[in-house]
Structures are given as C-alpha cells and as structure tokens.
C-alpha cells in the first residue's frame, strides 16, 4: 500500500535550488503528521555527492538517478526516470516545487502515472490520512480546497510560500542509486543551449522584493529609477500589463492574471492604478506599497502603505533612504 512522502528535488548546474528546501521542509511536516517517512529524489549528472546532505532537511533516503542525459532538464526523460522510482517506492504523496521545471515535470508525470495533481499550492495539510491542498484559482480571485482520489497524491508548492526548516547538518540520508533506464523515445527533446539572463536578475516568482511599474512610468527609459530601488532592496523589477503591452518591458516581467502570479515579502506598485487582473496576480504579497499621484486609484484599497505623490519624486528619495539602512 502506498505510504510516505516523496519529494522531487530540483537542481540547476549541480546546485540544489532553494525551492527544493521549501518542499522538503513541507514534506517533512506532512510525513511527521502521517507518522511516515520522507524520501527524496534527485536527478542530474554528477550530482550524487549532493544527495546525502538532503538528510539535514528530514529525508531518510534519497533516490539518485545520475545520468549524462539528465544533466539538463527535459520533461520526457525526467518523467520516465522519476516514474520508475515512484512505481518502485510507491509513495502516498509526491511533492515538488511549482517552479517552471516543477510545473512542467509534474504535469507530464501525473499523466504518466494516471494520477491527480494539485498545482501551485499555498497550503498542504493532512485530514483523515489524506492530503488536502489549497490552491489559488483565477490567479488568486478565489482559492480551492482539493483532494486527490488516486495514488500518489501529487502536489506542487508555490515558490516563497512554504517555510524552510533550519537544517540539521548532523543528519544524513541513505543514498540509493537507481538507473534512469532511458530509451531513445525518452530523448526526443534535447536542450541545445542554456542562455543565461543578465547576471543577478531574480525571477519574479522567486523574488523577496518586487518594485513594479505601470502606465504611470510614462516610458521605458524611466524604469531605471525602479531598477535602482530594486538593486538597493535586493529585489527585482516587475510591470503591469499596460506597460508590457506598450512594449516598455519584456513579457517575462508582467505581473497579473495573464502574467506571473507573485508572492514576495514586499511589493511596491509604482504608477499602477490596480486593474482587477493585476491585483489578482500580486495580492498574495506579504506587504504591499502603492505609490500613485491619483488618491482614488483602486490599488490603494489593497495597499498596506499608500503614498499619494509623484513616483518620480518618491522613488529616488526612497532609494536614497534605503541606502542609508541597507
């Protein structure tokens, strides 16, 4: 019978990504609640030496598929390798992070395993021995509590939401090496090139601080002041749909229902009026600041702190003030 919690960890260039620690921490909480063990899965090439350390986050055992064909993520190869591990280990719950890779992989894998998948969850809990997942729908205009009637019960967790438990370096996991068993069919896609973004650019979905600009920015050249503030606050810059549609910022910067749904600790909305589809995408932020000349802008109804003033005066002044304390 299916039991225990299994967490699929994500590595990039051989380094475990932060979201994996979030999922391991949450997975351990669920496993403790079930009185069951948590295991982990790690795929890559030359990554076996990273596996034992996952014990510090509560994994008792780590299944490692080390294969040159797994060095860079592709959906089919990863789903095949993990599918084999899952069929053998038979976990009751299978978790991963809702990163770009995690969302893609989990969907393909759920199709392969013919099981249900709760995507991008913000709360996981156990009720009567079963997983209950809470996930935002309509980009956060509502939340759904869902259950899965098949095994493994699969869920992905939204970046930045699950608290990371301090690791216990004295604990080490048993490492179980497994074969990926890849056939030519699993290698129909291959990554030709990994083109890195400008150094230091943090993805919106993983940022702790987002400084976002809308139509009130008046033009692409003015985003420099947001970049400056973001740099001081160690954050990244986002944009509203109107700013992206105007061609001022790239599509990957868009926050909202047709862009990215974000959950930073601090969201600073500059010159953004607060269209409903934008508010949906950022209302999960812990603290929201709105800076806008128009005191009637709807964004102020959602903001913890509102500044009614010209952003072109306020933002540079904030940067200077923040520099003094950061």
């Amino acid at each position: 019978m299916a039991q225990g919690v299994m967490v699929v960890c994500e590595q990039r260039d051989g380094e475990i990504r932060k979201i994996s620690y979030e999922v391991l921490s949450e997975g351990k909480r669920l496993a403790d609640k079930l009185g069951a063990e948590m295991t982990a899965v790690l795929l890559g090439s030359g990554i076996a030496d990273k596996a034992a350390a996952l014990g510090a986050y509560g994994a008792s055992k780590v299944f490692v598929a080390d294969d040159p064909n797994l060095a860079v993520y592709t959906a089919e190869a990863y789903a095949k390798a993990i599918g084999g591990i899952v069929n053998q280990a038979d976990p009751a719950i299978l978790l991963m992070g809702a990163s770009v890779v995690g969302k893609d992989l989990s969907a393909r894998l759920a199709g392969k395993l013919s099981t249900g998948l709760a995507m991008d969850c913000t709360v996981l809990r156990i009720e009567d021995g079963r997983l209950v997942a809470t996930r935002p729908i309509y980009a956060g205009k509502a939340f759904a509590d869902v259950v899965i009637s098949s095994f493994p019960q699969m869920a992905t967790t939204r970046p930045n939401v699950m608290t990371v438990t301090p690791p216990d370096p004295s604990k080490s996991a048993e490492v179980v090496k497994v074969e990926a068993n890849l056939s030519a069919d699993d290698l129909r896609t291959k990554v030709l090139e990994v083109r890195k973004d400008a150094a230091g650019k943090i993805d919106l979905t993983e940022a702790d601080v987002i400084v976002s600009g809308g139509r009130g920015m008046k033009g692409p050249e003015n985003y420099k002041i947001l970049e400056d503030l973001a740099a001081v606050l160690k954050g990244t810059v986002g944009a509203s749909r109107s700013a992206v549609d105007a061609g001022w910022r790239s599509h990957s910067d868009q926050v909202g229902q047709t862009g990215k749904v974000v959950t930073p600790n601090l969201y600073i909305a500059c010159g953004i009026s607060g269209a409903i589809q934008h508010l949906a995408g950022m209302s999960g932020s812990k603290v929201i600041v709105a800076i806008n000349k128009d005191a009637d802008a709807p964004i102020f109804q959602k903001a913890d702190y509102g500044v009614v003033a010209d952003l072109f005066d306020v933002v540079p002044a904030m940067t200077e003030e923040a520099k003094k304390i950061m």
Partner: protein
Amino acid sequence: MDIIACIKQVPDTESQIKIAPDGKSIVQNDIKWVMNPYDEFGVEEALKLKAKNGGTVTVVSVGPKRVTESIRTALAMGADKGIRVEDAATDDGDSFTIAKTLAAAVKNLPYDVIFCGQRAVDDDEAQVGAMLAEMLNIPHISLVVKEEVDLAAKKVTAEKPIEGATLVTESSLPVLLTTQKGLNEPRYASLPGIMKAKKKPLETKKVADLGLNAEDVGLAGSKLQIMALIPPPQRSAGKIVEGETPQEKAATLVKLLREEAKII
C-alpha cells in the same frame, strides 16, 4: 502540414469571481466568456505555421454550446475547421479527464504540431498540455516564446524561459507546444473572416463517438476533486503615509517598512 490548436473558453480576466451557493463552483450569470488568452497565442502560431508551410488548422475544444463562439472566433482568425466535444459526461472534469477527452478527439487526426495554451486563466492548473502529450506519446515543450519548424527535417526548435535563463530546445515532430505571451500578437478576426467562419465545418462529438466511457471523463473520471471554494483573504486599505514633501513621505515609508513591517 497538419496543425491542431486546443482551446478553452474561460471567464474574461476582468471578471469578478463570486462563489456559488454550492460552495464548489462560481456564479456564472454575469460572466463574459472568452477564448483563454494563452490559447489565442496557440491559434495565432498555428495560423503562422500554416501560412509558411501550407496545410490545415483544426481547432478542438471541450465544453457546452457557448464554446462554439470561441471556436468561431478561431475560425474567423483563419483556422479551417473545428471540433467540439459536447457531452454532459465531461462536466466538472479535472485536467486529467480533459486531456483524456482531447487525446481521444485528436488521436486519429493527422498532426505535426499541437498547440495548447500554457495554462487556462480560470483554474490555473497548467497541466493539460503536458498530459495530452504524454497520453499521445509525443514530446512536448512548454512555455514557448519562439518556435521554428523544419518540416523537411521533421523537427522543431523552440525557446522557453525558465527562472534566470532561456532554454533553446529541439524536438522531433510530431510535438505539442504550450504557448505563452511573447510568442506572437494574436490577430483580430476581420469582417470577411467572420463571414467565412460561419460556413466553415464545426463538428460536435459525444464521448461515445470518441470511444470513451462516460465514467472515464468528467467528474466521475477525475482524479482531483474540489471540496470547497474559498474567497481570498480580504486585503483592506492600510495607512496613507503622511508628509509635507515627497522626500519626507519617502523617508517615513522606508522607516515604516523597516521598523513597523520589519520587511526590509
């Protein structure tokens, strides 16, 4: 070449979402239904591929009669024919059963490329594309912002952004691509296009026509069940930062973020 674009009809993103008395669905009265914005990129890209390589674009969807309107929109944009699965048995299905229904609807059609939006802006599941590819046993590339099909070599090269990088990925054909903003600018249907669309073929199928059993689809076949919908935590207006000058307000704000919110 043969191209399939899968579409879903969803509430317009400007819609207010209200939870229905059953606690598991939304109030549909005032909803304006539109083609899922991410699926529009798929239809547009399908039309671009057709313009370049020739061939046929087939639009496939699952849903009630109102969905006809979204399929007609795609036909008015330039797609050639539509297939709509309308069957009460598919109601309230999860991503798994929708992928299963779509797989049954397209498996006997010729296809080189299948497009799906990377996610639907209603349930935000982001699953159907990859599941459909798995069920059809073809490769997929998700979140594509650029693609180039080489029909002679039977392959596609596509770019997809991940956190902090872009992956340039190659795949054999047939392939399923999930589409997102940045790939193209979907065209508007022209008036002649709208007129022509009325005469284009639009088939309606039942699940039995697809060789599926009613219990395999819809709520009965779903692996994921909604227990309850919950309104989001309400945020209310906080404090307006006071000050004589913008500089003073900025200084007060930074102080509040540091000392009160303890966030920086």
